[in-house]
């Protein structure tokens, strides 16, 4: 069982054009920076990216958009990105917008072997168009299908050589859900340790869901909206 790979380039080397990817992170928080850079270097194209957001013009998935590597985005919110807007309006890029909780739960569903879930989000709105509506206990729910990806790419704080992962604070977000939803799951971590060094009681993603892991480098961890309060 050799899950450890050298670096991001090795981790993503067999991702083909037209692949469906899940990319963890919320905004620029907890995104797989090293793998995104490697995908940009590799120049793979026509990707479908399932990711809550689409980065900003010069960071995150925005870097892949700039290179026109993305055919379709499946996201809940895609603001803050001028190039994205240009491609969308020109028809170069397809976008499917999905409520955030639905997106999260559809990723989770795949990892739990549940083919579909019911959620009230979007009932009575354009999100419900063409979808099965079902009433349980007087409340209406949409049937939404599980998401699976060819490759899920996630970023964790710490990981071990067996693929167990621990995330930091709100950088957890979609990462453990997408880690479960990949046919092949790639994890980049800030610190890679030997199996046995992480507390088995505090693992967020059990290694069974992770196929490749490496210690990333040069994390920028850019802050999208720095908000502070004054010391008095």
């Amino acid at each position, binding site marked *: 069982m050799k899950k450890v790979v050298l670096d991001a380039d090795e981790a993503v080397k067999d991702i083909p054009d037209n692949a469906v990817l899940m990319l963890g992170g*919320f*905004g*620029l*928080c*907890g995104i797989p920076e090293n793998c995104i850079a490697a995908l940009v270097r590799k120049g793979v194209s026509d990707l479908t990216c399932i990711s*809550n957001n689409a980065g900003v013009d010069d960071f995150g998935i925005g870097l892949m958009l700039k290179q026109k590597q993305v055919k379709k985005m499946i*996201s*809940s*919110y*895609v*603001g803050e990105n001028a190039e994205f*807007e240009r491609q*969308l*309006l020109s028809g170069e890029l397809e976008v499917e*917008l999905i*409520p*955030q*909780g*639905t997106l*999260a*739960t559809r*990723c*989770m569903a795949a990892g739990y072997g549940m083919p579909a879930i019911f*959620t*009230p*989000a*979007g*009932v*009575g*709105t*354009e*999100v419900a168009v063409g979808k099965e509506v079902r009433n349980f206990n007087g409340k209406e729910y949409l049937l939404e299908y599980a998401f699976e990806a060819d490759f899920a790419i996630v970023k964790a*704080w710490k990981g071990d050589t067996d693929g167990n992962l621990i*995330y*930091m*604070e*709100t*950088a*957890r*977000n*979609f*990462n*453990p*859900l997408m880690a479960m939803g990949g046919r092949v799951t790639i994890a980049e971590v800030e610190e890679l340790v030997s199996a046995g060094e992480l507390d088995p009681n505090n693992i*967020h993603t059990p290694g069974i869901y992770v196929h490749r892991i490496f210690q990333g480098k040069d994390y920028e*961890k*850019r*802050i*999208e*909206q*720095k*908000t*502070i*309060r*004054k*010391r008095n």
Partner: protein
Amino acid sequence: MALTKEQIAKRIARELRDGYYVNLGIGIPTLVANYIPEGINVVLQSENGLLGMGPFPFEGEEDPDLINAGKQTITTVPGSAFFDSALSFGMIRAGKVDLTVLGAMEVSENGDIANWKIPDKMVKGMGGAMDLVASAKNIIVAMMHSNPKGESKLLPECTLPLTGVRCVKKIVSDLAVLDVTDKGFKLLERAPGVSVEEIRSKTAGKLIIEGEIPEMNV
């Protein structure tokens, strides 16, 4: 005098009860955290995966791994917990969050809300708004009574694409506090110095006025 945004937030803060778990949306709702009454403890939920959100950090103490649903740097309070986005919306869907406060472009007299999309404008997405409005057991909308063109945002029916149906329970606008009832908007309080007549003229949806309408205490 119409309320300021801060005054709307302050009035909404008076709806908080001790022990409430609360989700505050972006904009005016975020300001509610600044006016939590003395003696009331509430826990703020951020739908990206945090219970126990604290104030913004001091300069130099920003943590890129610690942001709220508006992507702002934040802090935590003692007793906080992090979790993934599925559990976060799970607790919302399960009705564990006591109160959700969010903004709106339009609210209809039956409680429909539109706040995510304007036709012919770039659509950025609904984020967690559809999940929140479909799931929260108690939703208060913080909004201006009219849009910049002077048109009422409290309508018989929403004209914009809906975010959710029959879900808004209460509205606190710059002019009034209203309950959304089976029969329409029920006027509960007026902003100081604002007449019932002004509210009536700026409410396009059905307005229910019963008895004396007191002025808000803000």
